[in-house]
């Protein structure tokens, strides 16, 4: 095992971490604000990939310009899901029930995708999917660099929205104490609806990068969800920066262990790391204890 291979694994982990942060950002937002565990997040990533596939193959719209359509489309889907299903959940058993509700949503989406596309594997293609740049003595894949760049840009935008806008103050107020937020005039229902819309909308960005780096079919989402949930829990529920930090942390550990030792042990090691971190900081890397006290 050379130092070069180890360094390459670290860089791969950082870049792949950005891609996973893109997929987990929406999950942490919804989790943090609404205490809703969105089991459908994995299939929504795949749905985002299918939308990009559709635009790319049938309308000739490139993967990145296509985001101007897929992100708003997924935002509308998120709003509809919140309005139709999540809003009806009672506060006292919201978290537990949300698992069932979002699982049902996942099955419906999976069923619709299967009916339309079948189970044949698809993969998004573009000129930058197979190209790479030579930097630091390594070939760094363009698609991962693009994914990482989009992750940073998107997470900065979400951070700005949360901490520099009136809507963001409403989100954070709802996150800290939804009853108090209601009392001071925050329209909590509106905040929740828009939060789910944003959370699902950003998933389209994760979907396009996932679909360009992996073959997918309507069943692929199940492999993603356990890792995305681990990222959200480790980063701190509701923390966008935490999702980024946790994604990079987990993927770097995963890739280094895979290269240095064995890919079989990689998930075990990062789940052990997850347990250790959570036993020291139950609120996650960048989460706030008060949030979970609600």
């Amino acid at each position, binding site marked *: 095992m050379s130092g070069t291979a180890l360094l390459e694994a670290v860089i791969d982990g950082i870049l792949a971490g950005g891609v996973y942060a893109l997929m987990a950002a929406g999950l942490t937002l919804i989790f943090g604000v609404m205490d809703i565990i969105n089991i459908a997040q994995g299939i929504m990533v795949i749905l985002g990939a299918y939308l990009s596939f559709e635009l790319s193959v049938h309308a000739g719209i490139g993967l990145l310009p296509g985001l101007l359509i897929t992100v708003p489309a997924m935002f509308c889907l998120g709003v509809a899901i919140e309005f139709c299903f999540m809003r009806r959940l009672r506060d006292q058993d919201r*978290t537990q029930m949300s*698992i069932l509700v979002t699982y049902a949503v996942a099955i419906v989406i*999976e069923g619709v995708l299967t009916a339309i596309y079948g189970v*044949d594997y*698809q993969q998004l293609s573009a000129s930058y999917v197979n190209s790479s740049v030579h930097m630091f003595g390594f070939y760094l894949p363009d*698609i991962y660099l693009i994914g990482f760049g989009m992750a940073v840009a998107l997470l900065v935008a979400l951070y700005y929205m949360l901490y520099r806008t009136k809507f963001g103050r409403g989100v954070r107020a709802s996150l800290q104490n939804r009853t108090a937020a209601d009392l001071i005039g925050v329209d909590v229902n509106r905040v929740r609806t828009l939060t789910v819309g944003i959370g699902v909308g950003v998933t389209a960005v994760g979907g396009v990068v996932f679909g360009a780096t992996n*073959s997918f079919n309507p069943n692929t989402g199940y492999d993603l969800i356990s890792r995305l949930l681990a990222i959200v*829990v480790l980063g701190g529920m509701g923390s966008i920066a935490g999702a980024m930090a946790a994604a990079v942390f987990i993927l770097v550990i995963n890739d280094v262990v895979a*290269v240095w030792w064995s890919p*079989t042990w990689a998930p075990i090691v990062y789940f052990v790391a997850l347990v250790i971190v959570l036993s020291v900081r139950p609120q996650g890397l960048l989460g706030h204890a008060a949030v979970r006290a609600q």
Partner: protein
Amino acid sequence: MRVLSRLTNGNMRLGGAALLAAGASALSVAVASAGAHATGRTASKSPIMIGASLSLSGDFSADGQAFARGYQLWAADQNKAGGLLGHPVKMQIISDASNPAQVTTNYQKLIGSDHDQLVFAPFSTLLTIPAARVAERYQYAMVGGADGGPTVFSSGLRNVFDVSIPVKNNLVTFATWVASLPKSKRPKTAAYVTVNDPFTQPQLPVAQAILKKAGVKTVLNKVFPAEVTDYNSIASQVAGDKPDLVILGSVDVPTVSAFTHVFIQQHYNPKAFIATAGPDQGAQFVKAVGSGNENGIFVPNGWYPGFKKSDSQKMVREYVAKYGGSASGVNADVAEAYAVGQVLAQAVKATHGFDQQKIISYLKSGVTLNSVQGPVKFDKLGENLAQKTLTFQWQNGKLVQVIPTSAAGSVRPQYPKPAWG
């Protein structure tokens, strides 16, 4: 939050699949009729129900659906030929969502509750073991087309059969050919990377032993879990070691596709690249790796759409007529499934009935049976030793038979592998 902790410890895939399977089963997903256009004497007799659990969703869904088509195609042909002993055949296919626990439930239902007269195996070694255990309790024969992993035959099951080639010998033909190359042309180094699956894992050590004896040095030997969603680090490590030969133990298209894309990104083109499964998936594989990138990739198998055998060619024509596409896009799973029906039909005909013990004894009697994949002759364990593994290669957008080079129908292998694209 017990549910959450279960999700975060990585069990979601299985748990999700189980719930999905339960839902699918509850809805009795697919009671797929074989078309049963029974004519003449078959019309007056009651139908024979043949049950099978297949992965219509989940990790093996692409293979499971291809298997379903193969079973249905055989049943339709059998009905056209008068059914089984004059009875029309009806397939009862229910989904297991690629979940071993659901497979057990499904065969309990098919045999114990529905009393189907015959059962066909599910897809994969992984799912056949629990299925065969249920079938053995009811003393049913369990004949499959994709259950050739050694664990199936070392499980002490006396009722299980695989009409395809035993998995552990899959790479022998290829490895022997590599070892036979002149020393100046022979690869000097090889990487062995495989998913931890009972189908792939037994194959690599056999090939490695042959190549090691021929002086091919191992530079990497790694096993990765089936749940991997990011192959970048593993594939980059292979590319970084720059072996002349890559042997990839894969069960599906996404794995081979991910390695291919990383190899291209890393400007690495091995002299030879073989994957145990994935490249045999026809048009799906080409679509995933990108047109042109498939050329030069090898895959071991016992059958391909161009296989020169009359019943195989008829099956391919019927498949294209029924499901569309082109002959080269027909998945090898279809032939494996079709062959299961052919073999059981011959056993039923020879034993003049549906007595499972008689069928099992007949299949183990050393008789040679016919299938679209070639001859079938089971040993005492239920492995088919009558066929020899062939190795195929994508050349100019077509999957062609290349090894053994002396075999009828083989064309010259492309070596070294052409550049990507």
